């Protein structure tokens, strides 16, 4: 620390982690008010993965995400107005209110969508990587998945294909120890590093709650993928502070587990890299941005029934 570029990076990463945190806290309030359709999966405690990984990407790089994808969308550059309006199901949302929480997407920024189907984003990232490869783009694709998705057979198919075709794809595992309401050590008998080794794919593990560490590991791994080194896996050990979904009573979860997670808070750790005035300035700015976006979304009109079916087909 100390170099201008390091300070700039620490500020940037803190700003992203904080933006995701404050945005999701605002969502919890909006949900309680009944303004958000459906249910939402918050990534509180996991924001450093989104912030760190996206910091290593360029706008042409593409990302596929999961049901817990708010942070990925925000960190990949989705505007906050579009984000909140989408979550509230408004016509000015990123997906014109047609996607909501589990389908936030911003194709122009390479965010190819959160996904309501566990593991489904992985082959989509592969296809995007194939397009990068065939069209000679200087771009990588990133497939984000949870540790629960390791039990889906599709992961194996994708690792095999990615290696076979040497695709420019990075697999990012958000390992929070949970798959819905069951710890993943009661669902899965293998570890990702061994699975990676079996496929001949490099595996890098990182403390997913240390945003600086995620960012530097991601930068390193992405650089290798970008140079044509083929696929890689970045496993981020992280913590799901809340329940599976917002409002989850978390029956059967040990309160000590929750307390331990709070102690590893990525937000506090990201803040520690900054001076107090720096952090306070960012906090004031982010708070104002979130407030403005929430106000925008609250006032935004809903989609019209008359053109609800108009976008099912292009022609």
């Amino acid at each position: 620390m100390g170099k201008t570029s390091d300070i700039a990076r620490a500020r940037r990463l803190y700003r992203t982690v904080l933006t995701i945190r404050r945005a999701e806290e605002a969502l919890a309030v909006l949900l309680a008010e009944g303004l958000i359709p459906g249910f939402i999966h918050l990534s509180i405690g996991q924001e450093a993965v989104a912030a760190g990984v996206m910091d290593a990407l360029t706008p042409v790089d593409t990302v596929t995400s999961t049901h817990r994808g708010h942070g990925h969308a925000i960190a990949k550059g989705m505007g906050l107005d579009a984000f909140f309006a989408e979550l509230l199901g408004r016509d000015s949302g990123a997906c014109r209110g047609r996607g909501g929480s589990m389908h936030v997407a911003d194709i122009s920024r390479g965010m190819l969508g959160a996904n309501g189907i566990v593991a489904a984003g992985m082959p989509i990232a592969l296809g995007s990587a194939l397009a990068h490869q065939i069209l000679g783009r200087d771009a990588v694709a990133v497939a984000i998945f949870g540790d629960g998705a390791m039990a889906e057979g599709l992961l194996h198919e994708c690792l095999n294909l990615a290696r076979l075709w040497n695709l420019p794809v990075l697999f990012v595992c958000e390992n929070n120890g949970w798959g819905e309401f069951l710890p993943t050590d009661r669902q899965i008998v293998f570890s990702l590093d061994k699975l990676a080794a079996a496929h001949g794919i490099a595996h890098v593990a990182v403390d997913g709650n240390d945003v600086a560490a995620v960012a530097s590991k991601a930068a390193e791994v992405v650089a290798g993928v970008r140079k044509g080194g083929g696929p890689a896996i970045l496993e981020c050990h992280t913590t799901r502070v809340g329940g599976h979904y917002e409002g989850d009573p978390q029956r059967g979860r040990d309160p000590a587990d929750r307390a331990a997670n709070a102690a590893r808070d990525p937000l506090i750790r990201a803040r520690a890299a900054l001076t107090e005035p720096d952090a306070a300035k960012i906090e004031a700015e982010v708070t104002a941005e979130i407030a403005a976006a929430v106000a925008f979304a609250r006032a935004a009109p809903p989609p019209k029934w008359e053109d609800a079916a108009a976008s099912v087909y292009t022609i």
Partner: protein
Amino acid sequence: MTELRYNHAVNRAMADAMAADPTVVLFGEDVAGAGGVYGATRGLRDKFGADRVRDTPISEAAIVGMAVGAALSGLKPIVEISFIDFMTFAMDAVVNQAAKMRTMFGAQCSVPMVLRTQHGGGAGSGPQHSQCLEAWFAHVPGLKVVCPADPASAYGLLRAAIVDPDPVIVIEHKALYATRVPEPDSLPILPIGKAAVLRPGRDLTIVSYGAALRAVSDAAATLAKEGIETEILDLRSIQPWDEAAVLASLARTHRLMIVHEAVEAFGVGAEIAARMADIGFDELDAPILRVGAPFMPSPVAKALERRYMPNADNILAAARRLLA
């Protein structure tokens, strides 16, 4: 006289599309080296290179999901799934991803991909290699489904599918690959959603598609000897289907039958019958009849499969009921 074979028409459609547009790519199991189970992709890797024509491992879920991502990122992928029965492994990518993305992303994108596959019986291939599952896909908003019945349609519909900005499932028929016609003067791109009148007639309309049209033609020839003129409509496109053409034909003949090889229950025929019973009610002089497979998995034994598939006899029997 030069002839055009169905599988060669499929091949030519892909070759012409790939020559016209460098973003068209083709992948699937055994499409590159072996040229496809039915020879439809033979020679394409030599013409267009190993980058654009690729053999995949046996990973249907991954390769169809990959087509979705490729389509989102600037390619126009054609994926071959050698039997429609194997689509079960790829259903998430088709149904939850490809079909819905344009809608659920608020029209930010479309998903220009083509899934080429084949369906149908007659070859004793049994319950897991003979199914006609087109109705599954026609039931999902966001997908288009076509079933070419002859070489010219195989060419024209596949070309249309490849330029179409939305996901299209092109369902060929294993019994049609070796069929041939005299080389047509021209091979136009055929619009998706338009039916063709194969035979004009005034007494009854039979709507069908794919290989079942052969049995329909046989039945119509028999009826013609008795002075009964059957109008045959080749639907060509299942989703969207040409409601206007069916209604216009019904308005000429006032009697309607739908014939398909797929299981009759909850099938394409059910949808057409229900629509015509609604918007064509005033035209009807008889109940609308369907001829399709009975509600059971496809049999293997020839003696059973012959009876299982629609044939001229059961079409004739239905026609006589319709005309009674």
